[in-house]
């Protein structure tokens, strides 16, 4: 260890002789390491953001939409008819073992009024299960209960965006807002979730009991009073998603009396899976960015090799002298190897600092979240040392195997 430190000191002195040259050589490694750190940071930031968004829509979430139906050859799009009912929801909850909870919902656009301010938003009629399925919590107040749903209570829970627009900073709990001429008491405000993976503001919403929504706000389905918009279903675990999908399809086909060979009148979407694909693409992106950045690290390494070859040629006489006074092959090899590694390690350390600064600047000015993990810093450090060893070995070997006579005589 002492010997290594001593060799490093000698190497530093040799590098100081050609300050500009050493600095320029290091610049290659600095740029390489900084690029790797910043790019991997950007990639990791993006991945984390997508992961958070996926978390925000709720875990193990499956959505059942009323399906495309064809009537006399005219095909209606998904959701074109209300084929799902509250009874379907209850049946799924009761009969599918892979399903943890089911929440029927209806939704519609509404204008909400409080005092002299008003706001256009989406009203969603839900049951208390909605909260568990979406992993939502209350920021203030209390969510309405199953009794409130049964009693079609005029109770509303506001999303953050709605609360901000109607009440500004003040607490809306207990206040009365008017939705489609129906007065609702505000029960509380949801904890904000931010954007969904598809880019929608998940806080621009008002939650009201599904019964109240159908009877007083959005208007029920005249043909079927029990019809609902969509069912939100939570599977019992990430592995049970496919199983839950199959169980629900079988159950709903049976309940809707769909003959074998005919199309479903509902659509089931595994949302988690859809958004997981986005996460994968973000990860691929970050690997790609890192790979491209590594190329510049390799180019930096070639710079080191180049300058070390020049240095070996310039110092041929010195090498000859060292050999004459007793330096063995290993001594010369390690001297030049240590010099190359010192160059690349110094470059690596400066590169890490530059990379950290760059990723801070990126998140500050470009508003991208970046995430530099200690692991990526460590990797960059180790990798820059390896670059020094790899690209320093050939010049060092060349030096070590010089013929001492020729080397001493070299002009």
């Amino acid at each position: 260890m002492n010997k290594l430190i001593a060799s490093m000191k000698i190497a530093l002195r040799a590098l100081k002789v050609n300050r500009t040259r050493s600095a320029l050589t290091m610049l290659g490694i600095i740029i390489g390491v900084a690029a790797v750190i910043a790019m991997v940071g950007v990639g990791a930031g993006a991945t984390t953001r997508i992961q958070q968004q996926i978390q925000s829509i709720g875990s193990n979430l499956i959505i059942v939409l009323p399906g495309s139906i064809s009537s006399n050859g005219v095909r209606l799009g998904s959701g074109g008819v209300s084929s799902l009912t509250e009874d379907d929801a209850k049946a799924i909850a009761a009969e599918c073992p892979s399903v943890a909870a089911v929440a029927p919902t209806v939704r519609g656009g509404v204008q909400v009024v409080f005092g002299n301010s008003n706001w256009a938003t989406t009203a969603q009629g839900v049951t208390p299960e909605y909260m568990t399925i979406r992993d939502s919590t209350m920021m203030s107040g209390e969510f309405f209960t199953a009794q409130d749903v049964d009693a079609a209570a005029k109770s509303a829970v506001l999303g953050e965006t709605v609360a901000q627009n109607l009440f500004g900073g003040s607490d809306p709990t207990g206040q009365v807002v008017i939705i489609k001429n129906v007065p609702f008491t505000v029960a509380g405000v949801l904890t904000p979730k931010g954007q969904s993976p598809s880019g929608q503001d998940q806080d621009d919403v008002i939650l009201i009991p599904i019964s109240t929504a159908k009877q007083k706000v959005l208007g029920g389905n005249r043909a079927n009073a029990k019809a609902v918009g969509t069912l939100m279903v939570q599977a019992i675990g990430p592995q049970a998603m496919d199983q839950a999908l199959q169980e629900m399809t079988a159950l709903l086909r049976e309940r809707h009396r769909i003959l074998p060979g005919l199309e479903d009148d509902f659509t089931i979407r595994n949302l988690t899976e859809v958004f997981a694909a986005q996460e994968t693409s973000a990860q691929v992106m970050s690997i790609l960015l890192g790979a491209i950045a590594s190329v510049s690290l390799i180019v930096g390494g070639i710079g080191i090799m180049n300058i070390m070859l020049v240095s070996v040629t310039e110092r041929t006489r010195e090498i000859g002298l060292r050999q004459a006074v007793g330096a063995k092959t290993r001594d010369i090899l390690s001297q030049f190897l240590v010099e190359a590694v010192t160059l690349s390690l110094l470059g690596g350390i400066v590169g890490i600092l530059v990379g950290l600064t760059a990723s801070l600047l990126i998140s500050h000015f470009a508003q991208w979240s970046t995430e530099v993990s200690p692991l990526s810093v460590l990797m960059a450090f180790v990798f820059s040392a390896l670059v020094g060893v790899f690209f320093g070995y050939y010049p060092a070997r060349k030096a070590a195997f010089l013929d001492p006579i020729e080397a001493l005589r070299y002009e």
Partner: protein
Amino acid sequence: MAAIIEIKDLVKDYRLGEVPVHVLKGISFDIERGDFVSIMGPSGSGKSTLMNILGCLDKPTSGSYKLDGISVGNLNRDQLAEIRNKKIGFVFQLFNLLARTSAAENVELPLMYTDTPARERHERAMKALLAVGLAGQEFHQPSQLSGGQQQRVAIARALVNDPRIILADEPTGALDSRTSIEIMAIFQRLNREEGITMIVVTHDPDVASYSNRNIHFKDGKLQRDERIAQPREARKDLEQLPAAQPEEELASV
């Protein structure tokens, strides 16, 4: 006195393209321990090649070379390096000091390739510099020293690992005549007081006249080998010269 160098039928060929060039054509001689030998000969006579072989920098094509009882012909690169490190001190015509490196550190260089701890390396370097009269200039860099002083640093470097032999290749070739005599005076003192075997290759008959034995080469063969009954005394010669920089330079010799 036992021979420290034993050479028998030494041949060295170089291959330049297709044609082999016979540089040394079968040379045999011994050098006694503690002797002071000068080797002379015109350019191309093979004396440099012989020096390289004596210095364990090169290996003979055939023939045997024993240095201090060790047969050198069978040794590999690293074993030769170790012999050079332990037994031989080199002095070159152009000093071959490391630039931007203090005299003391230049002298320490051979010890860097031994297990000597740093403190001891430094102490021995200082002692060697004292022995060649460079006390007070240990931390000067070569560019701050005169040619004679640089050659003294080189001699101190050759001395630092207590060698059996010092091989000097044209040690005075780059120095003026006065400084040359000063260097020869140091050599004579090391030879007599420390018992170090001195081998000096030179063009200059004056330099050779300070040795005890003169070997002449011509065309790769030993031409003449004579004992010098009355070698000149470098110290006395110096006293008779008009003093150029008397105090410092003379005091050290």
